[in-house]
């Protein structure tokens, strides 16, 4: 498993960057005729920004999206998380939020699709399911009273992820969509976790495995576990690397992270003849980002003044 870190070179400001940023105390518009969204407050009949970030206008809703807010989470979100601790009848996972998420033993799929009460033996065998540093996909089920997230993997599409790479982006860049599990036609699968953790891996192992239904198998549902090293040929790895770097670029330029922009950046980088690692050089990065903006793939209007 690789960790991909954003490059050390700072993101260059693009034309219009100044126009989209607001800081607390800046007036946005009149209150009449507009709805107040997150990150704003009302003063003297005017909507004022309360956080530092980008202004978003969706019809009549005006909100300010802060660049670096921790992931808050909502029930039903698909998240990618990393196991941090194995506790009594629960796993503690890192979900990029203010507190660690909790995956209860009663919230995972038992092998064979059984629905039964968890026994003491299940509790002793917790490490057969997930241990520290495992990456898994899950869904937010509920919140505890102190604000901690409770996750579940009660569907075969959720579970341990293997043979792939985890890329971290700002959580605010991942938008809710119909599908967070996406397979590109060139053999790379991605999971866009709402918490800003994006998993990029090999598509061949994406379908739920038949042996997840075997009695006696101690594995939860999941993808990628069965993919062997031999499946990851050089070309597949290179494509995975290119997709990862496309996501890193989208994060660097504060653009929405979704399947369409990633695919567009992937295609553009191949057209321009760049290798995956050259994509992150500042001059190439600006080229790709400008090309993406010009192509209109980014459907969301991001604060054109």
């Amino acid at each position, binding site marked *: 498993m690789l960790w991909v870190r954003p490059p050390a070179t*700072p*993101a260059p*400001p693009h034309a219009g*960057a100044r126009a989209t*940023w607001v*800081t*607390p*105390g*800046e*007036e946005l518009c009149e209150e009449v005729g507009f709805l107040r969204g997150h*990150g704003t*407050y009302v*003063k*003297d009949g*005017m909507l*004022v920004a*309360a*956080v*530092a*970030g980008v202004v978003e206008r969706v019809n009549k809703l005006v909100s300010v999206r*802060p*660049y*670096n*807010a*921790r992931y808050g989470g909502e029930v039903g979100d698909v998240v990618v998380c990393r196991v941090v601790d194995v506790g009594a009848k629960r796993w503690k996972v890192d979900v990029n939020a*203010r*507190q660690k998420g909790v995956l209860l033993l009663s919230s995972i799929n038992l092998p064979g699709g059984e629905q039964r009460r968890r026994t003491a033996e299940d509790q002793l065998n917790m490490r057969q399911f997930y241990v520290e540093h495992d990456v898994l996909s899950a869904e937010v089920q509920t919140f505890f009273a*102190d*604000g901690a997230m409770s996750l579940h993997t009660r569907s075969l599409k959720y579970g341990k992820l293997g043979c792939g790479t985890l890329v971290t982006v700002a959580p605010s860049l991942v938008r809710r969509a119909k599908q967070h599990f996406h397979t590109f036609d060139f053999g790379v699968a991605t999971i866009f976790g709402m918490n800003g953790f994006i998993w990029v891996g090999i598509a061949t192992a994406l379908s739920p495995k038949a042996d997840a239904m075997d009695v006696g198998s101690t594995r939860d549902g999941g993808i990628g576990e069965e993919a062997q090293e031999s499946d990851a040929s050089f070309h597949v790895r290179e494509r995975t690397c290119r997709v990862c770097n496309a996501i890193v670029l989208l994060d660097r330029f504060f653009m929405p992270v979704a399947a369409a922009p990633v695919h567009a950046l992937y295609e553009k980088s191949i057209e321009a003849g760049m290798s995956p690692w050259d994509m992150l050089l500042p001059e190439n990065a600006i080229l790709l980002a400008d090309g993406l903006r010009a192509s209109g793939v980014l459907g969301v209007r991001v604060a054109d003044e």
Partner: protein
Amino acid sequence: MAADMRRDGRSAAMLRPMACERGVLRRADGSARYSHDLTSVLVAVYGPCEVKKRREELERATVEVIVRPPAGPPRAREREMEAQLHGLFAPLIVGALHPRTAISIVVQLVDDDGSACAAAINATAVALMDAGVALRAMPSAVALALGADGDAASALLDPCRSEEERAAGALTIACARAPSAADAPPAIALLACAGAALEPEQLDAHVRLAQGSHDLICELARRALAEGMVV
């Protein structure tokens, strides 16, 4: 100490070169490092998070401030800074959004070469914005070293440590722009004066010096938030 150059070549109303960096600490919800040349302050913001029952407020978030000196245990000076920071930021943070939670501001003075309180305020503002905590306005602060006569002509803006020690008094002024007053000078958010008696006109002159610096500091903070590290 009149119109001559200061020891480091500045005039009386010049700021030192400043640097601002955000997102310095990975585990904190928000963090920032702000430097007035050699004075450097590191601030971490945690929150909104759980609060102790006895400090819980039913209708707003509890703002806690902790200031630590570069070396040794915190003393009266740090306690005073905590009170000043609390007095400035508790009303500025929109606490009503997060009742029964705590927002903790931890200030570590890394190097103190004068104007430490002003640097702490600037760093805290950037750290709060980095954490995405809702603020009513963006404050900035400068310090002034006062001459014996309290006159604005003999005041030194953004003093270094030696100038602070030799001064008769010290003034820390924080300004913030009210939303509806985009063109007017920023309003005063914090005024802390020690060691000198000032006439109202003299105070006005000092305040104007601070207001003149507001836009510069805010622009620096804005760029730091947008780009990462700016010097």
